[in-house]
């Protein structure tokens, strides 16, 4: 912690020199993170934009492709992610109150839900490999499912499926790394009631990952769910 040397001009040990007060510091942290979040919205928005264009061009391909996906796993993962968002919101709550033990507990719960999501994702991806629905010939995986491949646009649909869910899963893996780091920072005493932007800003990132899935679930998994 702050050594009592050059720091005797009377400010809080958790206030950086270039800020006027703790509130300005917190506000600056939040604003910077939101600029990054705006970038994240635009990044995934571009993928959804491309998805939209190709869905207009290949409506049958999107419908048949969606019917191959496991809506039960997709739905279960939606619920798992919503619970992880709730525990993350609670981690932020206790960080604001300065109750670091409960912060760590809720971050561990969030990591647990994130892990459950990845396990379900593993089974889901495995089934796609087994069914020959992986359109990455260059990497040695074939789109060998003749009946599905016969419908125009299905290969492209599965390209979008793997890139969009893959980028989403990558964000979750990075998120779990960040949560490990945050727990270490808390245990080092670098997070306090006065300075908890680390937890608060990571919360923004994790909730964003949840938002992406909120759109991926109906747009990828439920197109072919209509009962006749």
């Amino acid at each position: 912690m702050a050594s009592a040397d050059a720091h005797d001009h009377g400010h809080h040990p958790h206030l950086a020199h270039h800020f006027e007060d703790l509130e300005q510091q917190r506000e600056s942290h939040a604003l910077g993170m939101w600029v990054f979040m705006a970038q994240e919205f635009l990044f995934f928005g571009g993928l959804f934009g491309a998805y939209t264009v190709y869905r207009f061009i290949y409506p049958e391909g999107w419908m048949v492709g969606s019917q191959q996906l496991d809506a039960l796993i997709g739905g279960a993962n939606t619920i798992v992610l919503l619970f992880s968002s709730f525990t993350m919101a609670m981690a932020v709550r206790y960080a604001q109150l300065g109750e670091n033990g409960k912060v760590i507990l809720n971050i561990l719960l969030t990591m647990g839900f994130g892990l459950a999501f990845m396990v379900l994702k593993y089974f889901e991806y495995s089934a796609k490999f087994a069914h020959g629905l992986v359109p990455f010939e260059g990497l040695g995986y074939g789109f060998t499912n003749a009946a599905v491949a016969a419908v125009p646009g299905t290969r492209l649909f599965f390209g979008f499926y793997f890139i969009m869910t893959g980028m989403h899963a990558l964000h979750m893996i990075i998120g779990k790394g960040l949560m490990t780091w945050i727990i270490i920072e808390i245990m080092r005493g670098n997070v306090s009631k006065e300075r908890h932007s680390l937890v608060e800003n990571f919360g923004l990132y994790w909730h964003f990952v949840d938002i992406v899935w909120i759109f991926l679930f109906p747009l990828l998994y439920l197109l072919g769910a209509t009962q006749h």
Partner: protein
Amino acid sequence: MSSDHDSVHVSSLGFGFSILLALCGLTGLTVWTARMDLGIFDTPVALAIAFTKMTLVILFFMHAKWSSKAVKLTAASGLVFLLFLFGFTLADYTTRPHDDPWSRLSITPGQIHPSDVVDHGHHGDHGGGGDHGKGGHH
């Protein structure tokens, strides 16, 4: 200048849990409406529910409701540019004269289940077209 103490909003556990329940309920609603045949409204309804869920998460889990104007403006800026992206894209693709893209989005070809086709791999050629979408159960 200092409104120090009301600037940080602390949500109660009960409030957070009620948001969680609302989000789970809306997920159920998404599945329920997806199983109904709404024609061209299938996707608009699903998106309306997704936008509602996103709004709940941004306002209450991401604390946008209690944030400063600068943060609100920054949060909105990304969404505004997405509005441009989707607005102009849809203005093009929904108004092309040669086909009727709205009706094409609501087509429902026959079901193809992986169980029907899982053993048909490694045939090399991808079929003679023409009969796609008819390999299903019904």
